[in-house]
């Protein structure tokens, strides 16, 4: 067994001997050429199967080119010249046997035929007996018109005579058709026997030029004897020599026609004719139709072409030629004159429109469309599609002038809408007279049909209003859908109208401020389907006269007169709107027994009247006190003035003078409340009274009591008994509450009378009310309280009856309020003792002394109780012992539980005296900082400081007193830092050691060593890739020499520490100094390395057995470098150690990283097995092998490379 490890700079390859022990026979079936080809795969070139190659496709033979423009018929065959004997057609006999008619003139035409000839040449019965005077007429006719030039015609007749019928002569004469006479006379001899004589007549030489109709006549011209003479014609034929033209074997055309005279787009019109061929059949026909040569189709002898009417073909489509060919390729053509009218153009529809978009039911709207037609046919009918909400209509549109701007190309229809909703003008159809139809797209034209509310009958029912009077503005609104709401503009304000009845809607305007022009200017309404209408309104106005006439400067010109004298009253009466009714000004006068109304005028007749001054002269007819008690007036709007006057009176009498009597009453308009009473007295002015006159002193509560002597009680109780007498000393009387309700209105008057005259005080109005406590003016005098601070909740509680108790609910608790002296104010003092953000006053109730209660909720009156002061903690001096040449940072953590922190300040004595500082304090979050500059610090000084904080509620917290002593700074100088790995690399590069540590040390040289108490060396990795990058070592201080001293620190760098740049930081501390350097660096090199647990992987097995390795199950791989490692392996074949010709393939060994995984065969190719192995980590690889049969027992070895 062998093992070898190769160190290749940063990679390791492990070579493992693979030993196999066993007895087996093995025949190597294949042979690799060596490990050099590991990973090399040789792939065969792909072959090509030539047998399946596709034969090339031969080039196609081009189609023969047909020149369709050459449509002329084929030329007739060249004419031939020759003799044709007409006989049966089949044999082409150049002999013709004319029709022979005896004794008659026969003009029948037609082809000769042998049958007729045979009639003649057959038996006797067929003989033609030509008697004297009789004629045989022979006609020749070229019925086939096949003879061009007639050259020679020889007719032969064979006849004989009966011997018994001799004749002197007979003449055989032939004529041509032109009437020329050519006579060939036969001199007949009388035969003794039957004489059969042949005679030939050369008709051509007799001038026959054509055979259209040629006639021969044979007759006896010269009768020798008188006896009947006959000749017997036995045979007759003609030989014709002529120039021959080819037979007329061309297609023959006839029966031209069409099946229609007009057609619309896409319709087919059939052009047809009959084509026959005399000898063969017609094989092909074409013709020029519509400017194009088209093929015709056969249907027996009928040939036709179906022409389709299209847009392009629109117009007259003419069939002008026809050509045909027969199977012998005889071509013929001729002109044709057939046509039809094609309209392949549909009418054009454009500009569909409607003249309305919003109309009301029963109204009309127009729909229009422009229809044009460029085809032969004119526009025939036009329809418009109308959709309403339920139905669909096709409306006929017309271009008859007069409706909806129709005319010319414009077609229109007028439509009456019958129901509400959205009517749509849909598609438009147009037909022309040939039946072409066009349908437009959907027009998307909508006509909203709505029954908009309609307005009418605007009016206002009163055009002049007094204050408080109401005018009704009316409008009739008609809507079939029902008006949902309506509003209007009245006097510039938008107001909602109220539904009245029927169609009436109204708004009631209340006159409250004078306005000469209250207009109804606008109305709008909406119906139940949201149809809105609105309109302006004009001319509907009213005037609001809110002011009653005023009376001022009321006067009486006398204060004391004798009976029957006159006195004047006057008043200045005006009306702000100028609507005063002059005749309405009246004065009310108390004439000692009654109130009378006196008309006042401004006619200037008396008492200074004129202009706005109205007056009246009154005769005092009775003694007593005449009072001018009221001025009345009204304006045209109906506002009424009724001004009560006080103190205007005149004393009418003879013998005494009582100036006045008044009610001494504490109020101008008194109100009683439940349980109350009020005192009053009647005080006469008797300064001018004569003595000895008996006066009666009375009061009257109008509405309740009649005049009552003061001595009487009724509802009146006096505080003194019997105050009546001549002594009128102002005695008080008490009036108790009349009722515990709000309904009683009374008056109180006093009266002083002597025997003839009564003097009245002005009436005092009194009202009786129930009385409940009333609440006003809630407030609290402080909304944020500090601990122990009080706040006062206040309110005013009023009532005619004295308030007995007031309670409230504050912060959920019942609070008893206290009356502030004898005022209406009540209060409750709340004391802040524990923090509460919301101390609310929610309810209050009170009771008066007649037990009437009232209560109410209270809102918006609350305060916050902030009972906790801010907190100050964590005071810190940075540095703990500042030097006199550095700044001291004084910090603390300050917060307020309620979030009301207001102000933070600091106090300290660094300036010599204790002072507080509010500026210069900064904070980060809740940490507050204040810096004391170095020039304020002296070495040896003891500095005291503390923070203070208060909150907005007024709570103040004083932080704990802090102290520090200022150190005197010292001189320190770090001069040199030397980093030295144990291999003393001059570049301060530290090379890791596999699976081991590397020792590194730092030597720091500095001055002033004697007082240095600490040297700290820290090493940290700037990449921070792995485990805590920072080491911290405390160096030892030694090697002091003079002022220099060294600090030495040594540490081990583990191999797995991450590579890269490492920093060395040195802190030097002494009692009064500190210095730091972090500028020194070193590089920790990268190390790639792995370690495997065994050097030889051993197996022991018999053939055909798969066995686990005895010592590598598993094999352990460890990353002993400081970077991630990937591990690959590859192997070689196993070679017998003793007999090297035995070679076992490498793939007989397999491996996996898990014992129960899927094993991979070992190959010659480097294959990754482990990925990203972390430094110092370990992984396993399990090996197995199988052994083939046929190999001898020996050790087989191979090599496995481990690569990273």
């Amino acid at each position, binding site marked *: 067994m062998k093992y070898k490890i190769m160190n290749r700079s940063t990679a390791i390859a492990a070579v493992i001997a693979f030993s196999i022990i066993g007895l087996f026979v093995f025949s190597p079936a294949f042979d690799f050429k060596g490990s050099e080809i590991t990973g090399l795969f040789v792939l065969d070139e792909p072959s090509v199967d030539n047998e399946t190659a596709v034969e090339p496709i031969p080039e196609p033979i081009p189609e023969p080119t047909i020149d369709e423009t050459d449509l002329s018929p084929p030329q007739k065959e060249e004419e031939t010249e020759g003799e044709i004997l007409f006989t049966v057609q089949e044999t082409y006999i150049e002999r013709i046997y004319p029709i022979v008619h005896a004794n008659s003139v026969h003009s029948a035409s037609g082809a000769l035929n042998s049958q007729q000839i045979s009639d003649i040449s057959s038996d006797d019965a067929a003989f033609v007996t030509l008697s004297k005077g009789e004629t045989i007429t022979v006609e020749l006719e070229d019925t086939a018109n096949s003879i061009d030039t007639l050259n020679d015609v020889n007719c032969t007749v064979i006849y004989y005579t009966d011997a018994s019928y001799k004749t002197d002569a007979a003449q055989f004469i032939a004529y041509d058709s032109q009437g020329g006479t050519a006579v060939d006379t036969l001199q007949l001899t009388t035969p003794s026997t039957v004489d059969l004589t042949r005679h030939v007549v050369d008709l051509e030489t007799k001038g026959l030029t054509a055979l259209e109709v040629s006639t021969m006549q044979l007759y006896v011209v010269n009768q020798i004897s008188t006896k009947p003479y006959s000749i017997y014609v036995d045979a007759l034929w003609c030989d014709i020599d002529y120039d021959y033209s080819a037979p007329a074997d061309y297609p023959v055309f006839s029966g031209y026609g069409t099946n229609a005279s007009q057609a619309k787009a896409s319709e087919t019109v059939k052009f047809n004719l009959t084509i026959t061929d005399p000898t063969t059949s017609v094989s092909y026909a074409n013709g020029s139709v519509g400017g194009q040569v088209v093929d015709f189709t056969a249907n027996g002898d009928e040939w036709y072409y179906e022409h389709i009417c299209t847009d392009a073909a629109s117009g007259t489509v003419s069939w002008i030629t026809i050509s045909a060919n027969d199977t012998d390729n005889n071509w013929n053509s001729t002109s044709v004159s057939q046509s039809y009218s094609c309209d392949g153009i549909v009418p054009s529809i454009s500009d569909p429109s409607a003249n309305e978009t919003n109309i009301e039911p029963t109204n009309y709207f127009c729909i229009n469309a422009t229809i044009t037609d460029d085809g032969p046919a004119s526009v025939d009918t036009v329809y418009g599609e109308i959709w309403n909400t339920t139905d669909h209509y096709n409306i006929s549109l017309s271009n008859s002038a007069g409706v909806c701007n129709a005319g010319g190309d414009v077609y229109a229809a007028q439509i009456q809408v019958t129901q509400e909703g959205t009517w749509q003008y849909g598609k438009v159809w147009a037909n022309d007279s040939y039946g072409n139809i066009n349908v437009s797209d959907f027009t998307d034209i909508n006509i909203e049909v709505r029954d908009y509310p309609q307005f009418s009958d605007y009016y206002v029912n009163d055009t002049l209003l007094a204050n408080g009077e109401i005018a009704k503005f009316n409008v009739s609104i008609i809507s079939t859908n029902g008006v949902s709401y309506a509003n209007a503009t009245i006097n510039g304000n938008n107001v909602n109208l109220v539904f009245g009845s029927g169609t009436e809607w109204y708004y009631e305007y209340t006159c409250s401020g004078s306005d000469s022009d209250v207009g109804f200017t606008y109305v709008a309404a909406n119906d139940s389907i949201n149809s809105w209408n609105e309109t302006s309104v004009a001319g509907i106005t009213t005037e609001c006269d809110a002011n009653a006439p005023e009376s001022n400067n009321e006067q009486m010109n006398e204060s004391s007169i004798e009976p029957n004298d006159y006195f004047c009253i006057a008043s200045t009466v005006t009306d702000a709107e100028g609507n005063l009714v002059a005749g309405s000004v009246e004065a009310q006068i108390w004439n000692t027994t009654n109130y009378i109304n006196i008309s006042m005028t401004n006619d200037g007749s008396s008492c200074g009247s004129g202009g706005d001054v109205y007056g009246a002269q009154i005769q005092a007819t009775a003694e007593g006190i005449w009072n001018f008690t009221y001025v009345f007036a009204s304006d045209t709007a109906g506002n009424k003035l009724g001004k009560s006057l006080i103190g205007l009176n005149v004393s009418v009498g003879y013998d005494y003078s009582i100036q006045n009597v008044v009610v001494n009453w504490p109020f101008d308009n008194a109100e009683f409340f439940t349980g109350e009473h009020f005192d009053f007295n009647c005080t006469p002015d008797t300064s001018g009274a004569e003595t000895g006159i008996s006066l009666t002193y009375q009061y009257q509560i109008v509405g309740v009591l009649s005049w009552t002597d003061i001595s009487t009680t009724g509802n009146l109780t006096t505080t003194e008994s019997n105050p009546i007498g001549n002594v009128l000393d102002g005695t008080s009387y008490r009036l108790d509450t009349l009722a515990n309700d709000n309904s009683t209105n009374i008056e109180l008057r006093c009266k002083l009378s002597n025997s003839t005259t009564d003097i009245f005080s002005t009436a005092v109005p009194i009202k009786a009310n129930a009385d409940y406590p009333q609440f006003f003016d809630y407030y609290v005098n402080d909304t944020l309280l500090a601990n122990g601070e009080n706040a006062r909740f206040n309110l005013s509680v009023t009532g005619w009856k004295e308030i007995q108790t007031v309670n409230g609910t504050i912060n959920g608790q019942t609070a008893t309020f206290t009356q502030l002296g004898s005022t209406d104010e009540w209060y409750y003092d709340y004391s802040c003792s524990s923090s509460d953000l919301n101390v609310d006053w929610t309810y209050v109730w009170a009771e008066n002394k007649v037990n009437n209660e009232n209560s109410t909720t209270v809102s918006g009156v609350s305060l916050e109780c902030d009972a906790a002061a801010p907190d100050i903690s964590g005071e810190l001096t940075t540095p703990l012992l500042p030097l006199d040449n550095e700044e001291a940072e004084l910090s603390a953590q300050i917060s307020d539980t309620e979030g009301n922190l207001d102000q933070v300040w600091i106090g300290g004595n660094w300036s010599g005296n204790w002072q507080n500082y509010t500026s210069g304090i900064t904070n980060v979050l*809740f*940490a507050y900082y204040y810096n004391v500059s170095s020039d304020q610090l002296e070495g040896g000084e003891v500095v005291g400081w503390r923070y203070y904080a208060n909150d907005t509620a007024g709570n103040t917290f004083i932080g704990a007193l802090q102290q520090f002593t200022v150190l005197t700074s010292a001189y320190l100088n770090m001069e040199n830092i030397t980093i030295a790995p144990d291999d003393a690399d001059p570049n301060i590069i530290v090379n890791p050691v596999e699976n081991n540590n590397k020792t590194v040390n730092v030597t720091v040289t500095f001055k002033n060593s004697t007082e240095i108490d600490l040297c700290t060396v820290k090493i940290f990795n*700037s990449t921070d890739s792995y485990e805590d990058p920072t080491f911290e070592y405390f160096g030892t201080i030694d090697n002091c020499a003079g002022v220099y001293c060294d600090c030495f620190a040594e540490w081990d760098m583990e191999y797995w520490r991450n590579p890269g740049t490492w920093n060395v930081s040195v802190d030097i501390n002494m009692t009064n100094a500190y210095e730091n350097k972090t500028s020194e660096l070193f590089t920790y090199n990268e190390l790639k390395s792995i370690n495997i647990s065994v050097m030889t992987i051993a197996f022991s097995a018999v053939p055909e057995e798969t066995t686990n390795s005895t010592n590598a199950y598993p094999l352990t791989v460890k990353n002993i470098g400081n970077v991630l490692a990937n591990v690959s392996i590859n192997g070689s074949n196993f070679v017998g150690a003793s007999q090297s010709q035995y070679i076992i393939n490498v793939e007989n060994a397999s491996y996996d990283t898990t014992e129960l995984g899927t094993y991979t065969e070992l190959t010659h190719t480097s294959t990754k097995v482990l990925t990203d192995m972390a430094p110092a980590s370990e992984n396993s690889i399990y090996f197995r092998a199988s052994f083939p049969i046929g190999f001898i027992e020996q050790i087989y070895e191979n090599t496995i490379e481990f690569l990273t």
Partner: protein
Amino acid sequence: MTIRPLPKWAMQKYATLWSRFKTRKFTYEQASKLLNENKNRTSVLFSHLKKSGWLKVSLSEEDSRKRIYTLISPEKAMEGIAK
């Protein structure tokens, strides 16, 4: 754990970190990038925060060689300082 107050320079950086990460986990690189500091200074800051009780260190679940950091809240710090 006792929490000690921070000097202003550390408190300012803590506030910056807190505004971003609150109580979420973060890495050394994230902090260094946020603070725009070189890593030496960040190391010093982390050391200070950790010693003062403002920073907790735990191992990464994904790579135990890496460290993950979390801040304690200002409120907890306040409570710790006040004790």
